């Protein structure tokens, strides 16, 4: 089939032009900004500082603690999301009558969106806990982080459950039957047969949650709003506050570029691992 250049342009250019304006150009402008010091006011001159913004990051205590917090948060949340999601998937793929209904209920939080979920749980951790005499979790730095992990788990467990269900359904019925004929217990079938066969889904989910948790922003804004005293501020929110609250446009943009590099590395490692796995299968 011959397609003329004219038709190629008609079909692709509208999208590619919008895409270039919205994503590609700002990305390169952003790299440029990260070498300047600028307060965001059009009238004020931006000053070239070279690599200084990237070096300043190393001495920025607020940023480094936000960074460490983000890593700890991400590790714990990834484990809890996947563990819970996997248990949910195992439960709703049984022959229980309520399996489909439970699947629908457990998945629901994912659709509501991080911002609103954060507000819903703010009511739980502050008002309900106060009324029970437990005390407000969101005014304590450690408990606020625990709250962040709980809400993120609540949001994403149902999501990874869906991926795990797809993986579990793909395991041939005969394999499971054969193992039970051979006298394997539920636990043996699970650890020796189903989990190894589920490895591709587990890899997908681990990385999906890894980059999603690392980038978390909405729940942070609505649940704790970086408080108390910035002690629950995570990476994304730190970038936002640096640029739009502190008006350090150049410095904040340097953090944004570092953020991009980390996310890109996580994703590229994921892609190389998952594509290798597919070859093996």
């Amino acid at each position, binding site marked *: 089939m011959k397609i003329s250049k004219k038709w190629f342009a008609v079909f692709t250019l509208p999208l590619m032009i919008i895409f270039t304006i919205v994503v590609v150009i700002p990305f390169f402008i952003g790299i440029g900004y990260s070498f300047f010091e600028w307060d965001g006011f059009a009238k004020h001159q931006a000053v070239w500082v070279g690599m200084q913004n990237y070096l300043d990051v190393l001495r920025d205590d607020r940023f480094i603690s936000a960074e460490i917090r983000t890593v700890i948060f991400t590790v714990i949340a990834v484990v809890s999301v996947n563990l819970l999601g996997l248990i949910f998937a195992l439960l709703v793929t049984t022959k229980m009558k309520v399996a489909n209904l439970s699947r629908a209920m457990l998945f629901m939080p994912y659709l509501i969106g991080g911002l609103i979920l954060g507000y819903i749980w703010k009511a739980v951790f502050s008002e309900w806990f106060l009324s029970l005499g437990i005390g407000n979790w969101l005014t304590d730095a450690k408990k606020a982080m625990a709250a962040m992990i709980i809400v993120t788990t609540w949001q994403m467990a149902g999501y990874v459950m869906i991926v795990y269900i797809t993986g579990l359904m793909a395991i041939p019925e005969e394999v499971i039957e054969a193992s039970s004929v051979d006298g394997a217990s539920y636990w043996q079938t699970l650890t020796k047969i189903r989990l190894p066969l589920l490895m591709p889904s587990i890899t997908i989910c681990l990385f999906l949650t890894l980059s999603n948790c690392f980038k978390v922003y909405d729940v942070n804004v609505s649940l704790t709003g970086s408080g108390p005293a910035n002690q629950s501020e995570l990476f994304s929110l730190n*970038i936002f506050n640096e640029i739009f609250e502190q008006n350090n446009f150049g410095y904040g943009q340097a953090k944004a570029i570092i953020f991009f590099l980390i996310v890109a590395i996580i994703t590229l490692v994921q892609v190389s691992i998952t594509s290798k796995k597919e070859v093996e299968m």
Partner: protein
Amino acid sequence: MNSKFKKIIPNILMMAFCLVYLLPIYMIFTNSFKSRSEMYENMMALPSRLTLEYYQSALSKMNFWVSLRNSLLLTVISIGLIVILSSMTAWMIARYKGKVSRFFLSLLIATMLIPFQTIMMPLMQEMTWIEKRTGLTMTDSIPGLIFMYIGFGAGMAVFLFHGFISTIPISLEEAATIDGCNTWQVFWKIVFPNLKSTTITVIILDVIWIWNDYLLPSLTLKAKENRTIPISASKFFGQYTISWNEAMAALVVTILPVIVFYLFCQKYIVKGVAAGAVKG
């Protein structure tokens, strides 16, 4: 009798667990009817009386119907355009093999790595600049926001469409060309109707994303009449005292459209999310 009983127990336990799991949603619902003092007596209790008082004030404070209209327009038009433009681009890239096609595809896929926070500031600068130069309202407007969502949605959508189009044989399209269809007709009459399953996946993933998105609209929308639903809801949770009954009524009306959407399209949503996660 005994075996029947044994079958019922896990079902009851599972249901009980799911209900406990969704308790926070029940909590905002029941407290949206209560006065402040009644709420703190027992937040898990049912309200002593049903009053729509807090709903009325919440709806008017958040300008609910205007926000709902904005969110609907934003979501529907953005997704409509993402589907149309991305499927056209993906088809061309898949069928017209060459350097330009390869470059477009790798550019679209590579930029899926860029987190929004990395380009939010320069994007806002650029949009303000375009607005000043051309007079087009790029900032603080729904059309401007739609423009940006097309750009951000392009990568994922082209990737999914391209993956599917590569698996369908070209012969039907060639036959249509011989029958006298031009390229435009081939795409809309032959190709596009075959993309239904991918189109549904793209729609589902983008509805969840755009309807709930907060950061991008919070950066551009300033005027009250332009607010989307998440932005309006966020105004109840300022720094100082929160009027919880109104705030919870606002949360209930905010998640209601999502629940309705879920009830009607559950099958598609679950399939779409699974497909998106595995391929993305």
